[in-house]
Structure formats: structure tokens, C-alpha cells
């Protein structure tokens, strides 16, 4: 059975190869996406994340706590390439509203890089998150992966399942076929349990007064990342991990550096450069 709907600013597809109670489980998985969007979106004023950004401190629910915890662990693991404190840099770049409302045709003022890397304190025992003055979080780079993993947990208990949230894909229960776009066309990966995510500057981009901008902020400059990569597809155990790794490798900047890092860390990746080269690395074959 298949169920498609919109949430988190993108198209979601759920596949479940199981007859009994499939409808109920698909509905529960869809509800999980909507529930998490209501908690984790920076664009909804009533979300927990918006309240945290507004007040600087919050006693958070378990989901916001878990995602912020994962984001901080990712910041540490990637030496700051992945950073949830890019909120103000994204806003300065013009991504200050849900993406479909961002004007595509220009008019966004000249960009000034915003500082990233501010302090975030997490007290797990008290479920309290505290931001340093002036720090705000964007969880767009990780919340979707978290939601995909949660939905797969619901569906996977009943049988083979696939969850696709705008290209962040997680599968379980049987070999699933997932397409990857390259400059030479699309090829297919076979994956039984795990996830695939792609990060790049080929989508979620818009025009500013000083040229094209995109949503992948380099925390070291506070501006949209530059380099020779068009997009990176990474395979990992969970969608959350795949999202983080794809972004971190994209920020490596050039094809050879990203491939070397993927090989060293054993992360299967597909790298596509702006000039049309495609490289497989990290054990992808």
C-alpha cells in the first residue's frame, strides 16, 4: 500500500508491503510527520522550536530535546560543518519563510554573513534547552531525517516499508530500489535496511541581488556554501545520519576532498560536481 501527502514543506511518500492494518499504520505514520512538523518547524510561531528561538530557553518535549541533542552531536562529529545555529544566516540569505514563499526572482538584499556556532546548553535531566544571547536554531537539516526514522519505526513493525520525505529515504524489511540522479542519468541502489539522503545546491535556491543563493549555509562563513560540488548523496544506517553526512561532505568543498573523507570514514556516497563529473566513493559500487 502507498500513501502520499505533503508535510514539512515537501512531498512525503509511504510504502508498506503488508495487508493487515496497513491503512491504520500509514495514517499513524502520516500523523507522526504532521505532529513533528508542528513541534520542529521554525516557521510556525507556536512550535516548540519557535518558542525556544523567541525566549532563548525552554523546557522541551522529548522530540525537540532528541533532535537538538542529535544536532549538537552532529556539530561535534563534523567539527562544525553541520551546525544547527545557522538560523540567522539562513534568514540573512533570504530563507526567512517557508521555502515555497521565498521569492525566486530576486529582490533579496545584499547578503552579509551571519555568525554561527553559538552556545547551546542541553540539560537532559531537566529537559531544558538554553541558547546563548543572539543564538537561534534551524533544524531543517536534521528534523526531516528524524521524522523519516520515526515513521519508518511505525511502518516497519508491520512489514517491509519505505519512507520518502522529499528525497530523504529510509527502508526496511526487504531489498528496496532507490534512484540516484547523476549528470549522466539516474542509476539505482539496492538497500535492505538503511537510509539515503541527498544535499545539494540544485534545489532550494533563489536569486539575491548579488547572485544565486541556496539553503546550505557554510557555518564558517555564515553564507551559502561555495565549492565545486553540486550535490552529495550519502548512505547511512538512519535518515538522520544520512542527512548530516551528506551536508558535511558537501561542505568539504571539492570532489577529491569529499571522496577522500568518504573513503576514510567508510560512508558510501555519490558525488556530483558542478561541471558534471560523478564520483562514487566510500565503498559504493
Amino acid at each position, binding site marked *: 500500500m502507498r500513501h502520499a501527502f505533503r508535510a514539512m514543506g515537501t512531498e512525503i511518500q509511504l510504502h508498506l508491503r503488508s495487508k493487515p492494518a496497513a491503512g491504520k499504520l500509514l495514517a499513524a505514520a502520516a500523523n507522526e510527520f504532521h505532529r513533528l512538523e508542528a513541534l520542529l518547524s521554525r516557521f510556525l510561531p507556536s512550535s516548540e522550536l519557535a518558542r525556544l528561538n523567541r525566549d532563548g530557553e525552554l523546557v522541551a518535549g522529548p522530540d525537540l530535546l532528541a533532535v537538538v541533542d542529535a544536532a549538537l552531536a552532529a556539530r561535534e562529529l563534523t567539527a562544525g560543518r553541520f551546525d544547527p545555529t545557522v538560523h540567522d544566516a539562513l534568514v540573512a540569505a533570504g530563507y526567512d519563510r517557508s521555502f515555497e514563499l521565498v521569492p525566486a526572482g530576486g529582490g533579496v538584499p545584499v547578503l552579509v554573513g551571519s555568525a554561527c556556532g553559538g552556545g547551546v546548553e542541553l540539560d537532559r535531566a531537566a529537559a531544558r534547552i538554553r541558547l546563548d544571547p543572539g543564538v537561534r536554531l534551524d533544524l531543517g537539516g536534521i528534523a526531516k531525517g528524524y521524522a523519516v526514522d520515526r515513521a519508518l519505526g511505525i511502518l516497519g513493525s508491520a512489514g517491509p516499508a519505505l519512507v520518502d520525505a522529499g528525497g*530523504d529515504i529510509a527502508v526496511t524489511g526487504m531489498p528496496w530500489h532507490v534512484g540516484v540522479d547523476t549528470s549522466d542519468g539516474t*542509476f539505482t541502489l*539496492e538497500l535492505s535496511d538503511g537510509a539515503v539522503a541527498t544535499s545539494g545546491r540544485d534545489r532550494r535556491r533563489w536569486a539575491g541581488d548579488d547572485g544565486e543563493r541556496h539553503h546550505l549555509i557554510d557555518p564558517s562563513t555564515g553564507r551559502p556554501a561555495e565549492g565545486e560540488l553540486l550535490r552529495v548523496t550519502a548512505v547511512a544506517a538512519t535518515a538522520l545520519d544520512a542527512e548530516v553526512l551528506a551536508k558535511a561532505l558537501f561542505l568539504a568543498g571539492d570532489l577529491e576532498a569529499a571522496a577522500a573523507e568518504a573513503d576514510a570514514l567508510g560512508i558510501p556516497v555519490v558525488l556530483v560536481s558542478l561541471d558534471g563529473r560523478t564520483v562514487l566513493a566510500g565503498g559504493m559500487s
Partner: protein
Amino acid sequence: MTSHVARLYALALSILGLFVAWAGIAAQPWGAAEPPAVSAAHDQTAAALAEYGKRLRRDARLVHRILARRAEQPPPAAPAVRIVTAAPVATTRTS
């Protein structure tokens, strides 16, 4: 006789003066005369140092927890994946 009494009075007054001067010095009136602004600044510096020390201890505990967690949980291995010739059910793209 009159001169002897006068000398006694003079001696008694000298001893009294000495005690008064001693008490005055022992009270350290110059310590109390410290400007209140300087004292307040010292208090603020001490409070800031105490807060900084508290933060350092908190950061140290956090680092220990992270290191302990990292030691306990090695990163999960990447799942097995291979390229096949088949039509995809879904296609990954920049999300």
C-alpha cells in the same frame, strides 16, 4: 607642690591621648572610607569569576559525558548497498 600636681595631670592626659590615638588607628577608618563604587566593582568581578568557574566545571562535565558516550557507542557501520539494474521505487534528491 603645685608643679608636681601639674606634672601628674600632664602625664595622665598624655596616657589618655595615647590610648585615644591607639583606638583610632586600630579602627582603620581609612578601610571604611573605600568608595562604594570600587567595592561594588570587586563584588561584580568576584561574581563573574564564580560564574565563569561554574561554567568551566559544567563544560568539563559535558566533555566527560560526550567522551564516555563516544567510547561506549562506536558509530554504526554503513548498511550494505549496491548498484543494480532495476527501476527505482523512489529517487533521492536534495531535500
